[in-house]
């Protein structure tokens, strides 16, 4: 099978959300001596992009995104050991700790953002719902995350987004993480008031936001949050 055919095959396993097949094709790619970095960008991420585009057209839904993300993880588990340290740094988009803040049990929006981030190559640590302030920080320390993403669907719970940020500041840790906020009642004004580094209105926007924060090179905390409003 040619390199192009293998890339297409890998992309298809991601689109199909087939974890087992994704791992098997990744093995074939290694056996064929193909650069794993090329396989990730031309095969895996291409498949993820297609699923993302389908989602925007309502031809794919959250479960397909979740399964595509899982398949990508299976593919990466095979490819990653064959990538050298320098290349690992190149492909690593960075770790993101995500969760719905304390007092809030809404999960769908957070799931969607987490899945989109996984699909874009981020290492995502999902803490679930009703997450206490310190839990975000403990997990971020543990996994050496670069970004903390805080979801809230209710105004009264959005205050916990600010509490996480305040805690980081008071503990002298604010410069270690970009903190981004989102959720139905969250506005750019609130992101500014809470002292966040970014806000996005949609899940697709959240991915653009995190990418932008990590690539622009401005260290946290930002004087004004980056706003992705579309």
């Amino acid at each position, binding site marked *: 099978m040619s390199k192009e055919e293998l890339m297409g095959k890998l992309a298809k396993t991601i689109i199909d959300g087939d974890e087992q097949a994704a791992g098997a094709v990744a093995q074939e790619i290694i056996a064929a001596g193909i650069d794993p970095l090329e396989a990730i960008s031309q095969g895996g991420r291409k498949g993820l992009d297609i699923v993302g585009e389908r989602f925007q057209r*309502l031809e794919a*839904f959250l479960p397909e995104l979740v399964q595509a993300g899982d398949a990508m993880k299976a593919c990466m588990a095979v490819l990653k050991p064959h990538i050298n340290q320098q290349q690992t740094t190149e492909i690593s988009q960075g770790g993101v700790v995500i969760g719905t803040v304390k007092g809030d049990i809404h*999960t769908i929006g957070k799931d969607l953002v987490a899945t989109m981030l996984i699909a874009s190559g981020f290492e995502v640590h999902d803490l679930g*719902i009703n997450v206490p302030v310190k839990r975000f920080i403990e997990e971020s320390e543990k996994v050496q995350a670069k970004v903390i993403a805080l979801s809230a669907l209710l105004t009264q*719970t959005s205050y916990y987004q600010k509490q996480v940020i305040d805690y980081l500041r008071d503990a002298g840790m604010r410069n270690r993480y970009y903190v981004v906020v989102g959720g*139905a009642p969250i506005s750019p004004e609130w992101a500014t008031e809470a002292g966040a580094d970014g806000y996005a209105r949609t899940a697709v926007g959240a991915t653009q936001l995190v990418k932008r924060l990590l690539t622009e090179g401005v260290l946290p905390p930002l004087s004004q949050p980056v706003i992705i409003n579309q």
Partner: protein
Amino acid sequence: MASIERALQILDKAQTGPICTTKGWGLKLSKTITEKLKKYGLEKTFDTENPINTDDGLADRFYKVGYELALEMGMFCQDTERIIKVTEEELADAIRNAPSELVLGKGKDTVVLKSRKPEDKLQPLSFSPMGHLISEDVWVRLVQGIAQQPEIDGLRSPVSPTVFGRPVLADTPYETIAGRYEAQLTKEALWRAGRTGLCTLSVASSPTAYGHLGGYGIPGGFDPESTLVIILCPAEMTTAYTALHKVVHVISCGGKTYVGDASMIGGYSGPPEGAALTQIAANLLQFAVHQADCHGGEELDVRYSGGCGREGQWAESIACQAIRLNTHLLNINVMNQLAGPSTEMLLYESAVAMLNVSTSGGAGYLGPRTSGTKYANHITPLECKFCAEVLKCSAGMTRKQANEIAKLLIPKYENMLWDPPIGKSFRDCYDMNTLRPTQEWLGIYLKIKRELIDLGVPLNYS
């Protein structure tokens, strides 16, 4: 009649039902919906050209499959990660025993929420607004402004972000105080508006159970007699102890409940057809699991967090008609507008949604959700009045008429759903002393009303 005995049975089921992880539940729900849509030929029935369904046969088919989905899936309990399964007998009993009308409010403000059918001539009721964040300094004035609109039949108090100037932190004593505080402010606003008997849909300041326990059924709090307690579930066909706490407390107080949930287009429900199915199933389950007196369904498109696009409107019309054609269950629909006050888009979104609710047989509407409730103080009495007017005057119109109008109105705003106009705040488009809208906002309101009248909506031009 709701009972503690039944509540205990449900709590027991939440402790002993089949185990399922949260992620596993979402995937299982998605898989089951996909299979059912395929098996019963309901795939690709979403009609992008006709946002309001006019086919009773299609709605009936959705009902049968939604009923089956409710029985097969049950309701997921987030806290115990177990499934609350419901037998066919329990579901049938719950539907049979649910009320077909509810007396709400007191004295001269008493209204009766009655079950309706599609194209019913009986006017639906209007409850305003839903889920807004209003700062303490304008809270009473705004609520007074809404309550004094004669077309409004019940009040859902907005949320104050602060209590005596302090942030209302969820799950803390601040929230407990906020529940009581909301009751106090609401009474003040209703007294000023001269509508002390108006039904309240409470407690808004209750993200967890604390606000509810602190504000309802206690001395000085919301009175069970004139309050319809709103209990919101975290996702479609999903419950949590937060919701169940409220249920048992309302039963203990002898009160009435509205239990709501949103079906997510693009989420685990999948396409519009799947979201319609989950809303039907969730609707039925709310009566069997939470012993609801009334259901509140909403279709939300997760791509832009709104409900007034073609997909959301179609799914809402199917789900609403399916339940109304096949049961006497009461519902108060919610639809999520995205534009802010003093914009034409807000009124176009609202007009489509109200025509849909009214002609699809909704017993009532709860909203508007101006600006998607995203921006503080971005709600005014005028769009509440507009929604109530369109909702009521369109009773008796046919779905075909409503659909034809929706087809003309949706193109006016659908390109802006991803980036809707924020509009202006209450302060910026109302005179705070007279509680009258600015000429600009009033002009927009009258312009859109004129357009609707010209399209055949029987509104009074004033």
